[in-house]
C-alpha cells in the first residue's frame, strides 16, 4: 500500500444535504480475495462515507469490478472484513440479503429481465422483496422512469429499447428498491458513444442528490465532475487515492502516471 491522502471531508453534498463525517456507509478492512491460486485483491482498505461519490479507475484485470462485486457479495472474499451499513458480510444468507436490499447495482450489460416488461422489471423486487402493494410499486416505478426520462417505454420489453435506454431502466430498477448505496460496474462501457451521455446525466443527477456511489468507470470527465475521490487500482491493490483535481493534475505513483498518460490524450 502506498501513501494515500484519505479524504475524510465530505462536507456538504450538492443539494443542500449535510453529511456527517462519522457516518460510514462501507468499511472494507484488510480484505483479500483469491480465484483459486490467483490473488485478485490484496489487502484492500476502503472506507466510504455516506453521500460520498467514489470513482475507481485502473487497467483491466486490476480487480476494480471484483472489489465492488464483493461489496454486495456477488463475489466472496476470503480474508478481512466488509461492513456495509453496519452489517458485516459473512456466510449468513440473511445478512447477505439484508445488505443487498440496501445496495443497488448497475451492470455493464444491463441484465434486465428480458421476459418482463420495463414496468415489471421495476416492480418485481419492490413487490417480492419489500412487500410493496402492486399499485404503489407501479406508481414508484413510473416516478423513477420519469426521472430517467423514459416513462413512455413502460409497457415495452427490454429487447425493444436501445442500450442507453436499457441502462437507464437498469438504474431506475435499482432505485425502486430505494437503496442507500449505488454500485456501478462500468455502466457505460457496453454503450455506443452517443448513448454514454444520457446515462452519465442520470448518474450525475443522482450524485447531486447525495446518493452514496461507487463507480467503476473509464469516464474521467465524470470522475472530475462528480467524484469526491478517485481510487486507482492495479494488480489487485489500491495504489493511490485522492481528490479528482489532485489525482489528475498531480499523480504520485509511477503506475498512475503511466495509466493517466494512456487514457488522457
Amino acid at each position, binding site marked *: 500500500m502506498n501513501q494515500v491522502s484519505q479524504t475524510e471531508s465530505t462536507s456538504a453534498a450538492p443539494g443542500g444535504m449535510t453529511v456527517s463525517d462519522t457516518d460510514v456507509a462501507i468499511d472494507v478492512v484488510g480484505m483479500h480475495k483469491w480465484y483459486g491460486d490467483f490473488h485478485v485483491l490484496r489487502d484492500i482498505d476502503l472506507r466510504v462515507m455516506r453521500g460520498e461519490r467514489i470513482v475507481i479507475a485502473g487497467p483491466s484485470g486490476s480487480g476494480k469490478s471484483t472489489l465492488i462485486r464483493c461489496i*454486495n*457479495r*456477488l463475489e466472496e472474499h476470503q480474508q478481512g472484513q466488509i461492513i456495509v451499513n453496519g452489517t458485516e458480510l459473512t456466510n449468513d444468507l440473511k445478512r447477505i*440479503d439484508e445488505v*443487498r*436490499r440496501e*445496495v*443497488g*447495482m448497475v*451492470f455493464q*450489460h444491463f*441484465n*434486465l*429481465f*428480458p*421476459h418482463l416488461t420495463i414496468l415489471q422489471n421495476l416492480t*418485481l*423486487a419492490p*413487490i*417480492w*422483496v*419489500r*412487500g*410493496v*402493494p*402492486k*399499485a*404503489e*410499486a407501479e406508481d414508484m416505478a413510473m416516478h423513477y422512469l420519469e426521472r430517467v426520462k423514459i416513462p413512455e417505454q413502460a409497457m*415495452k*420489453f427490454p*429487447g*425493444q429499447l436501445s442500450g442507453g435506454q436499457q441502462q437507464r431502466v*437498469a438504474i431506475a*430498477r*435499482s432505485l425502486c*428498491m430505494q437503496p442507500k448505496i449505488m454500485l456501478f460496474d462500468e455502466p457505460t462501457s457496453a454503450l455506443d458513444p452517443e448513448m454514454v451521455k444520457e446515462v452519465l446525466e442520470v448518474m450525475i443527477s443522482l450524485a447531486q442528490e447525495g446518493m452514496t456511489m461507487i463507480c467503476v468507470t473509464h469516464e474521467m470527465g465524470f470522475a472530475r465532475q462528480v467524484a469526491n475521490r478517485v481510487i486507482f487500482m492495479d494488480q489487485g491493490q489500491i495504489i493511490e487515492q485522492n481528490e479528482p483535481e489532485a489525482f489528475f493534475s498531480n499523480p504520485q505513483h509511477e503506475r498512475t502516471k503511466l495509466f493517466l498518460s494512456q487514457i488522457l490524450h
Partner: protein
Amino acid sequence: MAVQGNLRTAPPRTSFFNDPVVRGIIYQVVVAAIVIGFFAWIIVNTAQNLAAQNKSTGFDFLFRTAGFNISFTLIPFDRSSYYWEAFLVGLLNTLLVAVIGIFFATILGFVLGIARLSSNWLISRFATVYVETIRNIPLLLQLFFWYFAVLKAMPAVRDSISLPMGIYINQRGLFVPKPVPDDQFVWVYAAVVLALVLCFALSRWAKRRLETTGKRFPVLLSSIGLFLVVVAVGFVLSGASVSFDMPELQRFNFRGGLELPPEFVALVFGLTIYTAAFIAENVRGGIQAVSHGQTEAAQSLGLKEGDRLRLVIVPQAMRVIIPPLTSQYLNLTKNSSLGAAIGYPELVNVFTGTTLNQTGKAIEVIAMTMAVYLTFSLLTSAFMNWYNGRVALVER
C-alpha cells in the same frame, strides 16, 4: 455523360433467364410437374398391381370379424370383435404407454437434469454417467434387456416374489391390488372437484392480496392442506368405502387384482429411462442458457433464491426447454412402436402386424397407422407453435 438520359429510358437488356421473377416461375412449374408426375405414377402403378393380383381396395374390412385375441386390452375385445376394434385397442395401448411414459420420463428427466448441475460431485457425476450410458445404447436393446434379462428372469408363478401391500412379481408380470370403490364414492369424486375449485380460488385470492397489500401467502402448502382436508371430509361424510381386490395365487395363476403384463412393464420402463436421459439434457441446457447475469441482477435486487428461480430463471429456461421437450414426447410416442418387438400389443403390433397379415390390406392399414402417428405429430407441433408464439421474447 450524354448517355445518362438514355440509360434511364432504356435499361440494359437482361437475358430472359436471368430475371429472378421468371426464374422463380420456371422452378416452381418444374417442381410441381415432378411432384404431380411422381404421385400419378405411384397411384397408377399401385392400382395396376392390385388389379393384377386380384385384390380389392377399400376400408370395408374394418367391419369384418377379427378372429384373433389380444393379450392386453383396455376395452372389451375377443375373437368375435371387429378389425376397427382391434385398431382402437392398439391405439389405446399405444396412448397408455405414451402417457405413462411421458409422465415418468418428465419427472425423472427434470430431476436428472437438475442433478447434473448440482455442486455435489457424487450427484452430478451419477447423473452424467446415467445420461451418457443410457443415451448411447440403442432403445431396442434396452427393451430386450428389461424384458428378457429382467422381467422374464423373474421366478415362475409358484415362487412369485411377494412385496408389501399385496404386490407380487413373477414371470407373468406385476400383480397389484385393484381398488374397488363403492357407490358412495361419487361424493368423494365431487369433493375432489370442489377441493380443486377451492384451491384455484385460494390462489386467485392470494395473488390479489399480494397486489393490494403486498403481503405474501403460502399458497402451495395451504392448497395441499385444503385439498387433503376437503377430500377427507367428503370421504368421511359420504360414508364411502373402498375395498381392494387382492391378487390371490390359485393353482396356475393369480386370480383377481390388477395384472400388468411384463411386456407393458418392460416397455414403460425402457421408454421412461431412455427418454429421461434426453429430457435431462434439455433441462440442463435450458437452465444453462439463462445467462449468469440474470442471477446476479436478481441477487443484487435482494430476491431470495426461491424467488430468483421462480420469477427470473425458470420462466426464461422454460422457453428453451419446452420445444425440445415436446419433440422428446413425440419421440417417446413413436418409439413405443418398438413394443412390437417384445410382444406388447400396441398399434404397430396389433394393426400393421396381425391385422395386416390376416387381411392383406397393406395400403389401407399402413395409411391408417401412419395417419395416427402423423396426427400426433401435427397436434404436437400445432401446440408448440402456439406456445412459442406466446412466450417469444419481444425484440425491436
